């Protein structure tokens, strides 16, 4: 038994001998006995637009770090703060903190001043010898060479305690993309941290790189990202939406690629590198610039939704292109009236789209819901909702952009709660025929509708990142989502949309302002009534009619008629994208759009003037 005991103890001694006498990897030299790991931060990946224009790059900056245990007295706090442009009170607070937690901090290093530009850092470098314990670490800060896409690109911020608690792969001092593309592509953009190892003696003074840096791990730079954004169009859209509240989205229909996504008022790229400084004032801004209206703001779509109802009517065979319905300044049924503007009557579907006749679509919508094919209005409604959802409405489209909202298509149940089980009547929900009522869609949904019609019946989930074959999301963003409406019915509606834009003056078309010489634009206006002031101005369009290259949706809150504001903005964006510049004859529209300020019409505005109700 004693022998066995001695054998076991010999094993311990043998391992000790191996560790302490033989193996050098656990040993450092006789004088230098501790290593210091200094983090090497990777360069964050850059972001490009679809044509290779750099949207987000990096510039060098410096963090000044401090090892509190190495601070020597006497210490000239004022001089240090002067050099680093720091508030002296801040420095005192930090020092008090270091003293309080000195045993916890030990010989670790903590950040002292962050994000110094080189010019400031060079002052410090000259005199750093006077401040033992302080040293600089190169970092990079985001830089935005092209002035476009604040909300779209998103911002990068230092991780906070809450983030750290749920993300073990981040360390204090790391940066992370918090919104927009920076958030979507965080994993690809962030890169991998490395470290450099230094030797220090028993007084913690750094002596030299450990074994000439052989064991250092270099940082791996983040991957560059190519987006589907067209920087010029994005910039142009932001210019047009200046001083307006709303959103504009442009999609390439054949690929689902988002060409521009403007939310106004939005974040200026100038504030992105220093979000910390602006965050407070931005979050108090009445126009909520951090709120990305393009994907987060569900609103009633207004008359553009008539396109969907028209298509459903054709598919369900409750109308044919030649069926005509009357309109006498609106749709009248008993005491109910859905008003309409004055135009000729009766009209067929093409003309109804062209002139945006409310009455026509009331008849049409009632034929859909009261279709004898279905045993009850409820079931017809559910079928209708299924059709609408096949266009992407009422659900999240599944784009790669964060915080996308799904919008609202009410369920049959929620109506039955109001009207009683089995007691839903088509007249109850007649507003849905013209895109009003309980329905909500984001501007992204509307742009997607434009793209779906442009594609004659299918859409590809809109996305902002270009995916190469082999990416895990490649399939997802190349899959065609068909609607439940047959492709052949789309041409009828498209004819109406073309007529709405390209009819001769005096024909009663709603959107002739959107006509572009030499390009056949197909569009549909919308004027969404809402309880908060003036109507929202809506317009969706695509162009050219055959083989469309761009589909646009513009949604301007409380701006007024769709034809007055949204239509010109959308058509200018189309022209800019297809022609590269605005033709002479339309320059006046551009000037008018850029100069107009509609902020005062929004109830949230401090200068809000309540419009006189008709």
């Amino acid at each position, binding site marked *: *038994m*004693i022998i066995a*005991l*001695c054998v*076991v*103890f010999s*094993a*311990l*001694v043998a*391992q*000790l*001998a191996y*560790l*302490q*006498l033989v*193996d050098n*990897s*656990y*040993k*450092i030299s*006789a004088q230098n*006995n*501790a290593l210091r790991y200094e983090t090497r931060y990777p360069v964050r990946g850059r972001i490009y637009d679809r044509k290779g224009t750099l949207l987000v790059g990096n510039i060098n900056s410096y963090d000044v770090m401090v090892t509190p*245990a190495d601070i020597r007295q006497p210490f000239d706090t004022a001089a240090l703060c002067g050099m680093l442009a720091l508030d002296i009170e801040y420095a005192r607070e930090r020092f008090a903190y270091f003293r309080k937690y*000195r*045993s916890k901090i*030990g*010989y670790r290093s903590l950040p002292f001043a962050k994000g110094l530009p080189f010019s400031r850092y060079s002052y410090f470098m000259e005199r750093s010898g006077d401040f033992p314990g302080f040293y600089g670490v190169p970092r990079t800060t985001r830089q935005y060479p092209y002035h476009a896409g604040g909300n779209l690109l998103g911002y990068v911020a230092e991780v906070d305690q809450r983030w750290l608690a749920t993300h073990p792969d981040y360390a204090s001092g790391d940066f992370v993309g918090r919104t927009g593309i920076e958030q979507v592509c965080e994993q690809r953009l962030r890169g991998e941290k490395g470290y450099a190892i230094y030797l220090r003696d*028993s007084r*913690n003074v750094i002596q030299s790189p450990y074994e000439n840096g052989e064991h250092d791990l270099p940082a791996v730079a983040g991957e560059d990202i190519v987006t589907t954004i067209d920087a010029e169009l994005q910039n142009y859209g932001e210019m047009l939406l200046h001083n307006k509240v709303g959103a504009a989205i442009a999609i390439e229909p054949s690929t689902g690629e988002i060409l521009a996504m403007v939310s106004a008022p939005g974040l200026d790229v100038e504030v992105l590198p220093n979000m910390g400084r602006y965050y407070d004032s931005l979050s108090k801004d009445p126009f909520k610039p951090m709120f990305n209206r393009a994907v987060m703001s569900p609103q009633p779509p207004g008359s553009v939704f008539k396109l969907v109802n028209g298509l459903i009517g054709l598919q369900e065979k409750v109308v044919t292109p030649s069926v005509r319905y009357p309109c006498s300044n609106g749709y009248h049924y008993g005491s109910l009236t859905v008003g309409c503007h004055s135009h000729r009557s009766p009209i067929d579907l093409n003309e109804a789209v062209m002139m945006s006749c409310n009455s026509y679509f009331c008849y049409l919508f009632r034929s859909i819901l009261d279709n004898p094919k279905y045993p009850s209005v409820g079931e017809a409604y559910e079928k209708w909702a299924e059709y609408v959802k096949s266009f992407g409405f009422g659900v999240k489209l599944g784009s790669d952009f964060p915080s996308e909202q799904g919008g609202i298509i009410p369920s049959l149940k929620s109506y039955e709660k109001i009207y009683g089980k089995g007691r839903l009547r088509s007249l109850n929900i007649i507003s849905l025929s013209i895109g009003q009522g309980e329905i909500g869609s984001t501007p992204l949904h509307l742009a997607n509708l434009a793209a779906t019609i442009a594609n004659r019946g299918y859409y590809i989930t809109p996305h902002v990142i270009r995916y190469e074959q082999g990416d895990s999301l490649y399939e997802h963003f190349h899959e065609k989502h068909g609607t439940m409406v047959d492709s052949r019915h789309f041409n009828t509606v498209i004819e109406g949309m073309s007529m709405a834009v390209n009819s001769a003056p005096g024909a009663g078309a709603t959107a002739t302002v959107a006509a572009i010489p030499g390009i056949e634009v197909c569009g549909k206006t919308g004027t969404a009534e809402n309880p908060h002031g003036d109507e929202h101005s809506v317009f969706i369009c695509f162009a050219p009619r055959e083989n469309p290259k761009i589909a646009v949706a513009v949604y301007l809150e409380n701006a007024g008629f769709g034809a007055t504001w949204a239509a010109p903005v959308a058509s200018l964006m189309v022209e800019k994208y297809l022609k590269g510049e605005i033709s002479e004859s339309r320059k006046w529209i551009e000037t008018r759009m850029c100069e107009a300020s509609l902020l005062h019409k929004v109830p949230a505005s401090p200068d809000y003037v309540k419009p006189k109700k008709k």
Partner: protein
Amino acid sequence: MSTAVKKKPFDWVLILCWTALVAFGWLNIYSSSYSAEGAVFLGMSGRAFMQLVWVGICSLLAIALLHWINPQIYIGLNLWLYIFVAALLAAVLVIGKDVNGSRSWFVLGPIRLQPSEFSKLTTALLLSVVVGRFDFKFNLKGILKILLIVGIPAALVLLEPDFGTILVFCGLVFVLYREGLTGWVIIYAAIAVILFILTLIFSISVAVTVFFGFWCLYRLLAFRTKKDYFRPMLLYLACIAALAVIEYFLVSYEYISPAAALLMAVGISIAEGRRHLPWFKPLCILIAAVAVTFSVDYVFENVLKQHHRDRIENLLGITQDLQGAGYNVNQSKIAIGSGGLMGKGFLQGTQTKFDFVPEQSTDFIFCTIGEEWGFVGCVAVLAIYLIMIIRLISRSEKCPDPVTRVFGYCLASYLFVHVVVNVGMTIGLMPVVGIPLPFISYGGSSFLTFTAMLFVFIRLERR
């Protein structure tokens, strides 16, 4: 007591060992906590002072046990002591404080007590009295008694959970071995551990193969004539080869383990059957071995906690995570390794000083010893422990009273397990288990328990 007995001196070797370890331990606690407070502060830091208080208390306890307290008291009260501590163990589960994921501490103001430490003493006492009785035998009844005595505190400790103490209780098997339990128990246990580890590192089939390789070897040595072992050997080798082929060609791993077990069962039955040996025993061993290997996944995933899994995987080299689970061990190996032959000298350690090694004054105190006193210091400490254990065993053997003998063996096996596991984990030979280094680690409960046990033994042994 007769005057002749009274003249017999206390065992000064053990007392000297105790003094040396306590003094040396205090120096190292001073060193490790001195640095933790920062270089500015040279005074008596919290832990060093507290430990000094404990040294005083323990010395008083030692004197009291040697001179004042009659052994009849605790021998007579042993069952009540046992019950009292068992109640404490149960209470700590309810009102204890969670530290590092286990609930094993009572917190009374500045003092923290760990009842699982005290249970080592009371369990040893009761075990000594029961096993030391003149009529005790290792029959079913006797074994059941032992299982009950050790099982109750072990079960309560498992609920905390505190695997270190469980391990220490497992060490009592050495005591039972001395008292007449068959040595096969230890061998079976060792085989089970080896199978467990092999299964974790490689696979079930590798574990079973290796196990039967050893079986072969054993048979080879046990058989007398060439004729006797030639055919069975051939069969074993054929089985192993077949297994290797299956493992190599079979795509689906699901079939390997059953195939391995089946092959081995057939092989062993044929071979042993030929020699007209009872086939029952080999078959039992076979089933047990297969059961152990198959239970590995279950035990590993369901019984052990995540940090145990990480530590074991790290020790076995399955995963290499120097920032996570492997951090302690890697840092402790660096600290000890950097000590070299002679160490860096008292208070000169940097690895332990800069807080690289967590728990540096409690479970990882051996790092400070290794770094500041080097190989020489480490070997000296181990030597003192070895002397202590050997001395305990030899004095126990000479003792006419079986109760004292069993108690001495209990203490010896406790010390053995504590030292081997604690030192083993700091130098990367054992998984990290929270278990202190007796007489050296900071902390009152363990210190008190071991001091009490040692001096109880010294006092008993003089009778």
